[in-house]
């Protein structure tokens, strides 16, 4: 799974009819990505662990559940306010493990470096990677490096694979949302995507927005321990934002999700940047928050637990699960109107209209 494909030059469009080639939109996390997976990968690679399409795959190994997740990071620019591709590569994969309720054990890291990349840049990336891994006590135990000719990689790409262990007896999964569950978010939305956007040539702006990139296991672990099987779903809303993550869960669990617009925490600067470009924060990528689905009677408890941790200080209950409108995410606006929050075909585009 790729992260935040805000690469230089483009965001994805709605395709005109059938495409005979890979488009940027195929990496955006929306409908095109789903179609690529379904039509071009699954037919050749099918197996039960893959078919579950969770954030991490679960493989039973002699009575234990091993969680495996891999992610390739192609973000551009490779250095951005609040982090760089190195720290992101650690956080992203560790978070995929955490979303399955798996304790991270170790990481591998593969680098594709573009010829001509200055060493001081590489040093900063790798230093950040090391610091991020040490901060949560997860070693990078193996790796690989390749160099390609100038122009064949956008400075560098990083793949990280993470291994984790999950207690037997299951854990959070996208198809476990139940009617009456409350939807929580662990922090304010839209920071990562807008921090990247601020650096884009042709669109950039000055801001103090920093990426929220962070390892979430320290916040997930106490939640898992306290709530156990009542922690129904965990999902980190990376590319495609909160809207896409909730749509996937609604579809997998065959339930409706109803959101309260006023309850969704959006930092003022993110809201302002989105206004300027005509973007909706619900579709903007995040790298340091997660959504959680818990039964109504445990929602306040979960909220309290999240808020007691620095990473979860601005956690909020943003909606609930209903049997109405299964598969749809509906937002109730401040004015009392409602609208559908659909999956976008590709990435959001800045608009003039």
């Amino acid at each position, binding site marked *: 799974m790729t992260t935040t494909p805000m690469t230089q030059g483009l965001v994805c469009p709605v395709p005109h009819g059938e495409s005979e080639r890979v488009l940027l939109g195929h990496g955006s996390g929306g409908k095109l990505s789903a179609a690529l997976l379904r039509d071009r990968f699954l037919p050749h690679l099918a197996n039960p662990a893959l078919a579950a399409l969770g954030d991490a795959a679960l493989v039973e190994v002699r009575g234990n559940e091993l969680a495996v997740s891999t992610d390739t990071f192609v973000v551009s620019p490779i250095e951005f306010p609040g982090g760089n591709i190195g720290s992101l590569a650690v956080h992203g994969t560790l978070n995929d493990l955490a979303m399955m309720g798996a304790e991270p054990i170790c990481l591998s890291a593969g680098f594709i470096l573009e010829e001509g990349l200055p060493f001081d840049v590489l040093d900063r990336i790798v230093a950040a990677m090391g610091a991020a891994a040490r901060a949560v006590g997860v070693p990078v135990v193996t790796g690989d490096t390749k160099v390609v000719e100038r122009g064949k990689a956008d400075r560098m790409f990083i793949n990280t694979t993470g291994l984790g262990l999950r207690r037997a007896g299951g854990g959070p999964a996208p198809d476990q949302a139940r009617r009456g569950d409350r939807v929580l978010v662990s922090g304010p939305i839209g920071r990562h995507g807008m921090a990247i956007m601020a650096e884009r040539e042709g669109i950039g702006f000055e801001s103090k927005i920093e990426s929220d990139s962070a390892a979430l296991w320290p916040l997930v672990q106490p939640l898992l321990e306290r709530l156990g099987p009542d922690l129904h779903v965990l999902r980190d809303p990376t590319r495609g934002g909160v809207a896409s993550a909730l749509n996937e869960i609604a579809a997998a669990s065959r339930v409706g999700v109803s959101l309260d617009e006023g309850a969704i925490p959006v930092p003022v600067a993110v809201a302002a940047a989105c*206004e300027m470009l005509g973007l909706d924060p619900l579709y903007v990528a995040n790298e340091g928050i997660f959504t959680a689905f818990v039964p109504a009677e445990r929602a306040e408890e979960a909220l309290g637990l999240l808020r007691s941790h620095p990473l979860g200080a601005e956690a909020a209950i943003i909606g609930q699960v209903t049997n109405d409108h299964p598969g*749809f995410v509906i937002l109730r606006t401040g004015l009392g109107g409602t609208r559908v929050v659909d999956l976008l075909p590709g990435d959001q585009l800045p608009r003039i209209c």
Partner: protein
Amino acid sequence: MKYLTEYRDPVVAKALLARIKSTATRRWVLMEVCGGQTHTIVKQGLDELLEDAVEMIHGPGCPVCVTPLEQIDKALQVAARPDVIFTSFGDMLRVPGSDCDLLQVRARGGQVRIVYSPLDAVELARKNPDKQVVFFAVGFETTAPANAMAVWRARQLGVRNFSVLVSHVTVPPAMCAMLDAPDNRVQGFLAAGHVCTVMGWSEYEPIAARYRVPIVVTGFEPLDILEGICLAVAQLEAGRHEVENQYVRAVRRDGTVPARTLVEEVFQLVDRKWRGIGEIPRSGLGLRAEYADFDAEIRFGLTEVTQEESGECRAGDVLRGQLKPFQCPAFGTRCTPERPLGAPMVSSEGACAAYYNYGRFRQAHAVSGTTP
């Protein structure tokens, strides 16, 4: 954000809704001209909240939707050239031409970039002297001053590798075309607030008088739209047909004169085809002869290679309010946001795209027997 978020106050909104409902003695039919206004109405669910009092018909005020197929095809032609960096506003990139769209052109090797401001395109040209930079100058009168300034600036700084592909449209002729149609149902208009910020509202006065329709210059936030509707309904109930200004914080009768002046210096009125509607005389802007050396159509010898539009696409009927999107036979089946037959399904302001989201939700409720 100041002067923006306070116009989303739910208490005032509810009061305005109540006022509209208590003033209207029948279900009036209003058209909001601008795509940005459509966006607010759909996003805030105002259609739903207004239900019985007012029917809102979404007008053709989306430059993405109405840019003629011919111009899109010319854009695709020039963007495919290896010596060209093609620049555009973001929302134009996914509009289908006869053969493909700008993003497919990029996948095949063309250089296509999004810019936020036309001046960014001029800057790109300065930084890349060995390339030709072409900017897709689309939009209504709101955007014409920005595009005019880009051309003026390029001349002033001697940036010779910059040119524009122009496809501007103007609002008043389109409103008249709507009102002239024998099956017109629109009884009052919310005029496009930012168009009027630039142009003022004097050109709407003869329209209001001739067709006897109230025209209220309206902003874009929920309170603006509701207040605009309130004023329009009050006029209709009283049998008045005047131009009124709701958007007083940004619009004056003469608009922004320096902007109008430069637009008149750089552009001239031309006949323009509106996608889905057809040609409307003197409804577009093109470069004047004095600025012809910045015209990409001339510089690159762009030819018309257009095929006919999909016969199935009923965009024209939708844009004129004759057809609700869900009444179109292709809606949601052969025409969806992923595979659009026409422009109103592509743009996030397009009526068809808006209904695709909202309409499916309504259908889901019909199936499960619940109310939204």
